[in-house]
């Protein structure tokens, strides 16, 4: 996995639940069939209330109508990101849309582990609240060695909490791949 990830930020508020990330009505596609799986990208974050989608101004869809991937690769969240239903499709949908990293103040535990165990996205916890310091569309850089996020648009940097043991699992492509690579299975 690359050590520096740059991209455009998509900013969200607190308590983004998994029904907002991928509504249950779309949990009908195969994750193994590429033509069907891309639908998860199309509908990623499609149920976030419009005024909360792409802060601070809102009304910005994560994925444009008719497209399968987002122009935003870094998601900035508040507290309790990924709360609600246990659903591996939630971090999977974000990955299919092209998201590589989430930086949020805190996570609902099941979403966090699903992100890691599936090797879908890197769930970074920010040390301070950052979703009011980065705007949707800002260019941001995440340095995985330094555990820092830099808003290239404003040149301000913020500390992220070290990922500890979970980064090797995500880099391997998920828990099973990690176990295979480490000769655990």
């Amino acid at each position, binding site marked *: 996995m690359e050590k520096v990830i740059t991209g455009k930020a998509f900013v969200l508020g*607190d*308590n983004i*639940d998994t*029904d*907002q990330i991928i*509504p*249950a*009505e779309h949990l*009908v596609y195969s994750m193994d069939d590429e033509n069907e799986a891309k639908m998860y990208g199309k509908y990623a974050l499609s*149920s976030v*209330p419009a005024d909360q989608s792409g802060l601070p101004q809102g009304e910005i869809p994560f994925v444009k109508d008719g497209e399968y991937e987002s122009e935003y690769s870094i998601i900035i969240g508040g*507290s*309790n990101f990924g*709360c*609600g*239903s*246990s659903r591996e499709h939630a971090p999977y949908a974000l990955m299919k849309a092209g998201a590589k990293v989430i930086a949020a103040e*805190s*996570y*609902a*535990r*099941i979403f966090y582990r699903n992100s890691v165990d599936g090797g879908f996205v890197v769930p970074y916890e920010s040390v301070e609240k950052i979703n009011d310091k980065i705007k949707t569309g800002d260019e941001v850089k995440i340095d995985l060695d330094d555990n820092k996020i830099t808003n290239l648009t404003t040149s301000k940097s913020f500390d992220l909490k070290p990922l500890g043991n979970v980064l090797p699992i995500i880099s391997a492509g998920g828990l099973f791949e990690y176990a295979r690579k480490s000769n655990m299975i």
Partner: protein
Amino acid sequence: MKFTFNGKLPNYLTAKDLILHILGDITTDGATYRAMEFDGEAVFDLSMNERMTLTNMAIEAGGMNGIIAVDEVTEQYVKERTDKEYQIFNSDPDAEYHSKYVYNAEELEPVVAKPHSPDNRDTVRNVEGTTITKAYIGSCTGGKISDFKFAAQIIDKQEVKVPTFIVPASTEIAAQLEVEQHNGRSLKEIFESAGAVIAKSSCAACLGGPDDTIGRAVDKDVTISTTNRNFPGRMGSRKSEVYLASPLTVASSAITGVITDPRNFL
């Protein structure tokens, strides 16, 4: 985190009221990364089914688990299901808790979680009279036989005013609806003669699902439901609203067509 409910639970309250009460106090991330232990006379008076409503909804506070110490009720439940030996774990007597909340169960009121979050608590009295378009009693948390017994107490010999969906959590519970009786009639008979729809056991509309899902919220539906979550669009249409409540409150509201305090019927 420890949540103690002292005193006896009044007949107009269920475990759902207790957990919605807690959620209102600690919010949907109030227990993130923590364990929630439930304690006190009112908790140990609960049936195993009702205890599951409490522990199941720990996740709505972000909890990693919800636990209740083992007592005779737990042991009987386990023994009915296995002959295997088991070991009992208890919290250390000198355990330190992140925080402790103490309630007097006798003073609590029936509550709802208003749209669009399980922590958006209000008393039923405060929202009484809100028009509803659907009532839903179902899901893993709210579709157990104990939930249907509560509902049958209220619905018996009445007719529902809004489309009302009875969705058993499992095929075992679906079968029990035909066996369990209230005032000499099976729960199935009570619900059917009241005009409620009994669906096949499934998650059904708890999480919305495809367009043809039974009980799904469409357009601007206002649903009162015994399920876990009421996030935007959770039960279907993004324009819909969901109130979470106990089976007693949902049943009372189904009969009147507006949100109704179960004390009006008990």
